[in-house]
């Protein structure tokens, strides 16, 4: 039977800027010790973003680490805005991966606008990590 071996959660309602078309980490999990040699991580992240004035797409990414150069988990696909640029809309993503030979993991959720100009504002964010 699979159990939840460790959990890491993080979130904030403090506004943060998503600069222009630069990939920006909007939330990171705490560092979580791996409870065994072979673990499945399930990561879900959410952000409410007010998009920049003329942007047309946002690419959500989950990365293992805290930098925009950290390993990508899942795919990085640009999503078309679901509302007019400058509106507030939700972005979320869920991935799993098998991990081994690590002492700790941290996962981060990033957003990257494209197609136009203007900073976005991340209004509230959350991430959860389940190690199974």
């Amino acid at each position, binding site marked *: *039977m*699979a159990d939840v071996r460790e959990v890491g959660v993080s979130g904030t309602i403090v506004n943060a800027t998503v600069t222009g078309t630069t990939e920006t980490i909007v939330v990171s999990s705490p560092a979580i010790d791996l409870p065994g040699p072979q673990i499945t991580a399930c990561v879900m992240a959410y952000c409410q973003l007010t998009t920049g004035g003329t942007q047309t797409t946002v690419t*959500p990414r989950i990365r293992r680490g805290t930098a925009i150069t950290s390993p990508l988990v*899942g*795919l990085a*696909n640009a*999503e078309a805005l679901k509302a007019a640029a400058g509106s507030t809309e939700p972005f979320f993503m*869920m991935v*799993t991966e098998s991990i081994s030979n690590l002492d700790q993991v941290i996962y981060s959720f990033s957003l990257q606008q494209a197609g136009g100009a203007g900073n976005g504002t991340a209004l509230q964010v959350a991430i959860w990590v*389940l190690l199974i």
Partner: protein
Amino acid sequence: MADISAVSAASDSATKTIAVPGILRTAATPEASTPRPTHAVLRLSYAQMTPGATCTGMTKFDELIHSNSFTQTAAGATEALPAGTGVVTPFFLMFVSNIANSDTEGADAAFQSEGAGGSNTTMQQSATLVVVAQ
């Protein structure tokens, strides 16, 4: 208060394509052992999809998996496409039900692109989480 007695999760980043109308399924979780007799099963599914040009909406079905057999447990209403056709769009489904006398639980979600005309709907990536509580 319920305790979590089992969890299972899976994701898939291989592209899948189906002509409209048609069903694409999210990653199916392994079947987790579950306690008898009754337990609650939460399913959470996510997918990034590009609806085909002739797709008019997306109908979501939750599917439980017992012994590799798929059972649809909820026939959702058809949702309008929030960003239109031809663009990558996230879809999401969460469902909870009480299950009796089952030894294992797995799940996926089936997203049915509605419409006609045979354009292709594509699923880019997906993930599913099952949480069993008793």
